[in-house]
């Protein structure tokens, strides 16, 4: 997992702290941001493979942030975290190009699996930029 670079975006600092420790222990290259705006700023200077994005934050909301991320770099994969069992927002996010979503409280192992899957898809897309293959393989 040490090639993977991830940006974690969540306004809950304690959650961010413990998740950071656990991911860094597994050699994931990690950046963090506590808001949509901060996430976008970070992405300008530090490109990442995957963004894990809490959908329910004050300030710039999840879907807005997602749109912006995809505009800046469409190849970045986004995994949504919904504390909101708001399936509509999650589905809309998928339509905007998010990779998938997970419900909070998030199962750490599930998050790891999703990160691996998202990384695989990003790698595939980067190899063949014209390929719009969306199937999971």
């Amino acid at each position, binding site marked *: 997992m040490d090639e993977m670079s991830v940006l974690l975006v969540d306004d*809950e600092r*304690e*959650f961010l702290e*413990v*998740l950071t*420790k*656990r991911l860094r*222990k597994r050699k994931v290259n990690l950046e963090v941001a506590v808001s949509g705006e901060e996430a976008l700023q970070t992405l300008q200077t530090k490109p990442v493979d995957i963004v894990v994005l809490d959908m*329910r934050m004050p300030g710039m909301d999840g879907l807005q942030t997602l749109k912006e991320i995809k505009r800046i770099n469409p190849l970045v994969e986004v995994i949504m975290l919904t*504390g*909101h*069992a*708001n*399936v*509509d927002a999650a589905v809309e996010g998928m339509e905007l190009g998010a990779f998938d979503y997970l*419900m*909070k*409280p*998030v199962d*750490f192992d*599930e998050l790891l*699996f*999703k990160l691996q*899957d998202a990384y695989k898809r990003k790698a595939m897309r980067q190899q063949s930029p014209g390929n719009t293959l969306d*199937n*999971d*393989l």
Partner: protein
Amino acid sequence: MNYVLVVLAVLAVASVLGWLLVRRSSGGGPGEPAKPHADIPPAAITAPPAGDDAGALEDIDDLEGPLEARPRRGGRLALLGDLAAGIAHEINNPVAIMVEEAGWIEDLLEEEEFRNSPNLEELRRALKQIKTQGARCKEVTQNLISFGQKASIKAEDVQLNDLIQDVVNSYDKRVRAGNIRIETELAALLPSCRLSPSQMQQVLLNLINNAIDALGEKGGRVLIRTALDGENIVIDVADTGPGIPPEMLDKIFDPFFTTKPVGRGAGLGLSICYGLVERMGGDLTVESMVGEGAVFHVHIPIIGREAGARKAAGTGDGAPPAEETAAGAVAATPTVVLVVDDEVPFVEALGRRLARRNFEVHTAFSGDEALQILKRRREIDVVVLDVKMPGMDGIQALRETKASRPLTEVILLSAHTTVESAIEGIKLGAFDYLLKPCDMGQLVNQIERARRRKDRQEQRIMEARIKEITSRRI
């Protein structure tokens, strides 16, 4: 037990809320009409919460004959739903942090310094317990969040007479024991309407359970009637119990209002029913005369009349078997299929053909891979599984799938030489088996039938859960 704690917590918050809104409830023993309390003024004036929709109650004393009441619209129930969802979200965050910290401790325990610690096993066990309890919290909050959800649940074309007949049939044993008769008067050629069958089942179960409770020890009759009333279908649930006194009529749809003694029902049933009926675009009202029982009226608009008329013409007032009705239903979400076979070209070809028929397809080339995917993707409805594969064979994969996901259906694909394994598979819970090369139409048919069976099982489980919450029997 967990449900009790959560309901008590919501009860506590809601009673504070209720106090703020100047609410009072009357109580009485089961089966007894409530005696008006001396301290409740005859026409209690309550201030509706800000933003309450129009829905002032007519002055009951002015009406004659059976008294009909409408619950106040929108306002309070929506408030409760938002409250429940809000609490759930607030709880989710601290629980998430707790569970992650427990996981972090687990990570640290793998360090060298702890290797020979005498308490290592116990520490691990305790941490696992924290995670388990955290998962339970998550389940409970999900239930609360669903209660507050405005999103609609899968709507289908439903023949209400069939649904009602199914529900009534499930009462047989309980009813015979307690000298209660459940009767039906179902209108012939009732058009179909478009709603979520599981939600309607919840409503019916609640109303019928209340009717049975009202009859109490003395027993009596419960009558369920369907009729067409202009643009609506009307379902009546009537009982010959003691009836509902006028001062209670405008309160019975309020959340946490109950005449049952503490511990025997939280009083959520009718408010949930009201919310569900409202979500279906309908209306729930009650009529009652003390000494003569009560009737609950469920009005449901008929949407999609063309489809309804077509079905009504062919149906008549009998009860076609549930499977046939489901065959006419339009599933709102595509079926998710996992295709598993070590022959890569076969899997890819099958996957493409299924995708063209609007299935959502995932693929795996081995039993191990299939199990991994099933672990990550909870939404898989049906697995199409080759019996003979190197490594983990189909039967083993079937066993493990059924062990972790009993509701997921499995269809086995077998060559002529492996038919015996396929039959063994049926005994282990596979839905069916098909011989390769299999006819595409047959396979699609079986996948759809398997999906319907899964949906029915899930509905039954959901009903049981709702019954548990709303009609508490300790």
